[in-house]
């Protein structure tokens, strides 16, 4: 589904991604872990198409297309979804309006009929249950005045409505209490099928108790320095990221 080859990217002139290689197939969950500043969020945002981040080398093939040639909106329309680490507050735009516009723009792109109001409402009401959101939430402005937990649940709710092929969850666990974490993880697990894939970007192993990855990758200084199964996450939890400072060899098999 996704193949990242030697991806290099700059942020404000500094090279943050220094040659990432990653292959994700349908039906898989990949966890990308790493200490602060390793480039995790940059990687997630580059995949989603943030224009301020300049790709200097490498390529990304997504569903047979060159992802880097697509605009952010077209990537979303092709089924890529980024759950933001820091969801943006947009006063004056209601959650309903955002979702309805997004859904219909995506459907239009795919040559599908726009949903009428009834169809749309029944869809979103159904998906809201997944992350235990109240209906009153729909009329509120996007993320405005939301608690941290509400913001993250909203990201998963949007994901549920837009039904992506590839979801990238950028530190969706950060700042959540255990109840909220369970709700979010449960939402992600329920959306999982053999046809879609998920990349979970996280600093902590804790989320991976609830979302069980097939593969774990360790990102350090803009490169994946180690890949393995879910047991790698436990190892990281135990040893922390300190070992990275001494060079990646320590953990090598």
């Amino acid at each position, binding site marked *: 589904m996704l193949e990242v080859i030697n991806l290099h990217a700059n942020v404000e002139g500094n090279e943050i991604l220094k040659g990432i290689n990653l292959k994700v197939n349908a039906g898989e969950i990949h966890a990308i872990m790493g200490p602060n500043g390793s480039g995790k969020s940059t990687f997630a945002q580059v995949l989603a*198409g943030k224009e301020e981040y300049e790709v200097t080398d490498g390529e990304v093939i997504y569903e047979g297309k060159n992802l880097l040639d697509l*605009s952010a909106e077209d990537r*979303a329309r092709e089924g890529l979804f980024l759950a933001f680490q820091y969801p*943006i507050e947009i*006063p004056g*735009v209601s959650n309903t309006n*955002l979702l309805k516009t*997004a859904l219909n723009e995506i459907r239009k792109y795919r040559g599908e009929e726009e949903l009428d109001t009834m169809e749309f409402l029944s869809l979103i009401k159904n998906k809201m249950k997944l992350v235990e959101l109240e209906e009153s939430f729909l009329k509120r*402005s996007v993320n405005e005045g939301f608690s941290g937990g509400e913001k993250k649940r909203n990201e998963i709710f949007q994901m549920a409505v837009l039904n992506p092929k590839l979801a990238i969850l950028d530190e969706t666990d950060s700042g959540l209490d255990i109840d909220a974490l369970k709700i979010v993880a449960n939402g992600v697990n329920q959306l999982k099928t053999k046809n879609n894939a998920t990349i979970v970007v996280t600093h902590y192993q804790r989320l991976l108790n609830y979302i069980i990855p097939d593969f774990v990758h360790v990102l350090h200084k803009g490169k994946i320095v180690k890949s393995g199964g879910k047991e790698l996450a436990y190892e990281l939890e135990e040893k922390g990221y300190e070992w990275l400072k001494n060079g990646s060899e320590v953990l090598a098999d």
Partner: protein
Amino acid sequence: MDKVIDFKEWMNQNFDVFEKSLNGEKSNGFHKVRKEALVRFNKLSLPTLKDEDWRYTNISPLFKYNFNVVTEQKKASDELVKKLLFDEMEAHHLVFVNGQYSAENSKLFDLPKGVIVGNILDAMKNNSELIKKHFGKYAVDQDQVFTALSTAFTKDGAFIYAPDGKVIEKPIHIIFVTSANGDKILTQPRNLFVAGKNSKVTIIEHYASEANDIYFTNSITEIVADENAIVDHIKLQEESTEAFHISRMEIDQERSSNFSSHLISRGGKISRNEFNSRFNGEGSECTLNGLFILEDNQLFDAHTMIDHAKPHCNSHEHYKGILDDKSFGVFNGKVMVRENAQKTNAFQENNNILLSDQAIVNTKPQLEIFADDVKCSHGATIGQLNDEAMFYLKARGIGDEAAKAMLIHAFAIDVITSIKSEYVKDYVEDFLAKRFNQEN
């Protein structure tokens, strides 16, 4: 091209022609008022950038034209009028074509006894006492050259009178449409709205043009809200983008009156709007809200003044500007709280969003407080569309244009929702949707 004659010189040369066009009106007692105003017009100088009140508004392009002061009286096409009406809104409508009342285009429903909805020319004949009592008493022209010009060339305008206790249920939609056929004309609507004690009226002043012609609208509106009256005023300014629009609105608010104003402006090469409200009694409330949407080389200027001359009054002012291309905006809002105006509540805010690097806005919110027990706030912001919000929307599959339109709509929404009429709200929303999301 003919040589352009000096602006004031031209007006004087054409006063005779104008007088002739008045036919019988010339002999009427009111004509003295015109002549005296012409004298004042001649004494006053035209504004330049050196005048504090015109510091950012370069009005000199206006003086490069000799506008015809006599306009052709005609009926507007039904299609044109229909286009300017709000779908399905039941309203009285008064239509003025090139500054002159067009009874044929106008339509009035039954009105409560004693209520007058019509034109000022008729009121001069039939209601001369009311005219004598109110005309020019609020928009004084001792030091206002454009007001003096308006008075000197007073021809017609809208006149509304709600006697004490009368409620005019349906809104009164007044359309001033310029149909100049390429002729450079000057129209000077002169409006007077008097709302008696405990009366209620909703008025929509709507300025528009048939074609994208060069012309000059110089309008004066005087409003009296007597004790406990409720006056809801909306001004839609959507003239030709080549037009000059200078307007002044003066509001006299008596005890416990409630006046609310919404200005929606999107037309004009240069448009200047002066809104001044004065509290003459306690317990009154004034709302001045505005939304201006500019593009190309348009210049828009809002000058407002709320005079808290009496205690226990509330004012709320919120102006928002959306500026694209090389457009230029000016906001100068003054709130004056006089010495004895204790327990004043005054809120004032101006927010602007610049959609291009070349758009400019000058904002000057001013508070002058001479009382010590008051609650006042003011502020101004100038910003751009939030890049992070744009990326967030795009990352949800929403295209650039649609995302922009959503954020612009979100920016304007609080001013739009404060408009009481659903029809006008829809009209403004439709306009915004069309203006910023052409492809849909």
